[in-house]
């Protein structure tokens, strides 16, 4: 469901008067084989393109070569995608020495070498978007392979300005990018989260074991699960100011990504958000047993006798004494024997019912109707 929501909002684009939705895909080291997030990136790319003829993608490739992406997609989609090649020659080494042959690259790949100059970068993206728009695609999505690579060449505020300008531009309907959280300071990551409307991150299913504990071997074998599964956390910022938190399980099978929902997660999420109350209302099992064993002061006579509570039914000890006698008779017999022994007062407690909760009659305001 989380993945469906993301794809839908990226595909739908923005309402008029709003900025385009932006998804920030976060990649981190604990989720092993950093390719997991890249797999999600590719999956999103493929699902956006496959939804119909209306959507087109401008892909800015830093991390992999453009031909890699083209080989992933079926040839029918090659017309709906334009690639900005920032992978082959980012520092302009090749073009300084050997000027590139003019008609070398296929039609939909544009080579970009001047990555320091971000306005030029922005205009190339917009040029490609206009190209696609001219071809009849009314919804153009921009996908940036890795913003981490962009930050190598340009300072943070200008990269953020570029992304914000892309969001404001009327030709762009949505935007998503990948970022490696371990390679940046926390404030850089939070700046990217600040300008995005959806934040997705991957976490390992099995956490790394605490090596101080005894049973290491069991936990290490369960770590293998991490290679095929991961937890997919999504944080959506909605228009009414509420935040929607979702968590799903991600399965990677033979290069394709499958999402399945995990039912037990919402309680984990809720626990972080409710205020921590100082007193714990729930009882653990041991506490429950202890409570059942507690002898309340009005249940015993204080003289070490067996505890017998008249609960309106025949108790075990009475039936043992005289199986044929009535209840009342049994009680008065006991009374007489007690009176012979001591002159202290006696407590006769009649329990209403066996399963009475101790505080059930506490709130007298329950029937109050204002």
């Amino acid at each position, binding site marked *: 469901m989380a993945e469906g929501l993301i794809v839908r909002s990226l595909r739908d684009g923005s309402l008029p008067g709003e900025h385009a939705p932006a998804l920030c895909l976060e990649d981190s080291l604990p989720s092993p084989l950093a390719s997991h997030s890249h797999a999600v990136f590719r999956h999103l790319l493929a699902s956006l393109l496959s939804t119909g003829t209306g959507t087109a993608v401008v892909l800015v490739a830093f991390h992999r070569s453009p031909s890699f992406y083209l080989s992933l997609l079926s040839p029918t989609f090659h017309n709906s995608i334009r690639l900005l090649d920032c992978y082959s020659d980012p520092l302009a080494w090749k073009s300084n020495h050997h000027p590139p042959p003019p008609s070398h690259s296929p039609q939909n790949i544009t080579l970009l070498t001047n990555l320091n100059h971000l306005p030029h970068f922005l205009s190339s993206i917009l040029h490609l978007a206009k190209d696609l728009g001219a071809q009849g695609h009314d919804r153009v999505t921009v996908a940036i392979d890795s913003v981490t690579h962009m930050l190598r060449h340009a300072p943070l505020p200008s990269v953020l300005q570029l992304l914000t300008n892309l969001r404001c531009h009327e030709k762009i309907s949505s935007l998503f990018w990948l970022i490696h959280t371990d390679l940046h300071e926390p404030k850089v990551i939070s700046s990217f989260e600040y300008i995005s409307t959806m934040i997705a991150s991957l976490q390992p299913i099995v956490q790394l074991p605490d090596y101080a504990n005894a049973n290491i071997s069991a936990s290490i074998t369960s770590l293998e699960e991490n290679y095929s599964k991961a937890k997919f956390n999504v944080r959506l910022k909605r228009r009414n*100011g*509420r935040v929607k938190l979702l968590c799903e399980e991600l399965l990677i099978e033979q290069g394709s990504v499958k999402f399945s929902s995990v039912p037990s997660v919402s309680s984990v999420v809720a626990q972080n958000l409710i205020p921590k109350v*100082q007193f714990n209302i729930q009882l653990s099992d041991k506490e429950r047993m202890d409570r059942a064993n507690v002898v309340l002061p009005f249940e015993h006579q204080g003289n070490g006798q067996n505890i017998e509570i008249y609960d309106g039914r025949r108790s075990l000890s009475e039936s043992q004494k005289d199986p044929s006698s009535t209840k009342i008779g049994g009680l008065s017999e006991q009374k007489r024997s007690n009176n012979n022994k001591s002159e202290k007062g006696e407590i006769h407690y009649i329990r209403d019912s066996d399963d009475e909760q101790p505080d059930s009659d506490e709130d007298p305001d329950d029937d109050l109707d204002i």
Partner: protein
Amino acid sequence: MATGGGQQERPTRPSSFSRVSSSSFSPASSSSTSTSLPPGVRIGANGAAFVSSGIPDLDRILGGGFLVGSVVMVMEDADAPHHLLLLRNFMSQGIVHGQSVLFAGPTKEPRSFLGTLPSPVVQKEGLKIKHDVSDVQDKEKGLRIAWQYKKYFGEQTAVDSHNRDKKQEFSSDFDLRKPLERQLLNSQNVECISTQDAFDLSKLQNHCLTFVSKLSMKDGINSNAGRIAIQSLCAPQCGYFEKDWDMLSFIRSLRATVQSSNAVAVITFPASVLSNSISKRWQHLADTLLSIRAIPDKDLAKLLTGYQDMLGFLHVHKVAQFNSQVPVILDASTYSLKLQKRKSLVLERLNQAPVEGSSGVSYATSGSCSSSKGSLLDF
């Protein structure tokens, strides 16, 4: 590095509205001399001058409004745009009272933000009077009402019937669905600046200086208060974002400028994009510190009443105090933002079962209010 002292280090403030000596201060004399005050400014406790924040509930919580000459900081939540509601009400209130407004925002066209300002609600006199009288009666009964039933009686207002009319002029309710009239926005005393492409804050600083000097040059006697509203001062897309110390020295100079003038500055900033130590320094520089928190969907429904109408939480960290060493102690510091009938903004106390006193203690330790979702709510 000195980050600016707290409120208690500055006992006097030479703004022209405040009364420095309190010996001749009495309610009778304040009402007779209040006619010399420009509209929108009121004298409150200890002879301090207040302007309204645009939200009557917030004025009441802060003990009168925003102090003239103070800097109010609002910590934004990265997930929710509710700080814009506060800014809009603040600016609209200033425009309605004819005060000069300076707005700086991190967009290319900050003027377009003016189009979203709400216009005031025209209220019938009779309804307002009835509400105040019943509140006064409740106060006189001296009831101690259990927490479950407080929500049925509403909030007690501290305004007596004598000042009722003045209260209505001082702060107005705003209808968030209706935009402010065009001719009010086009007047000369509303300025807008964009901070997005600026590489340093010197331009903004000069603008603020000229704005404040214009305030004192007007006519001498009836110079009105001025309002400076800066949206998302440390937004990451601004060119000066990585210059932490420059931003801090800008705030310090703004504070000094505003302190000796008749202006109030409201600055909103997303605290999560700053590093922890710099964020703490920003918070220390504020005279009044508020923060906004977004509500996660559905999860808190079982704990709070009236959950569906809530937009977010407003947390009051610091309240400015003038001419007094007594700190302001609030009943509750977390309020919920709600839209009443979808048009006006109200702040309500949260209704929940009382939590043990630990919530007060740990609020102090988690006062930095980062975007971590595990921080406590203080009731």
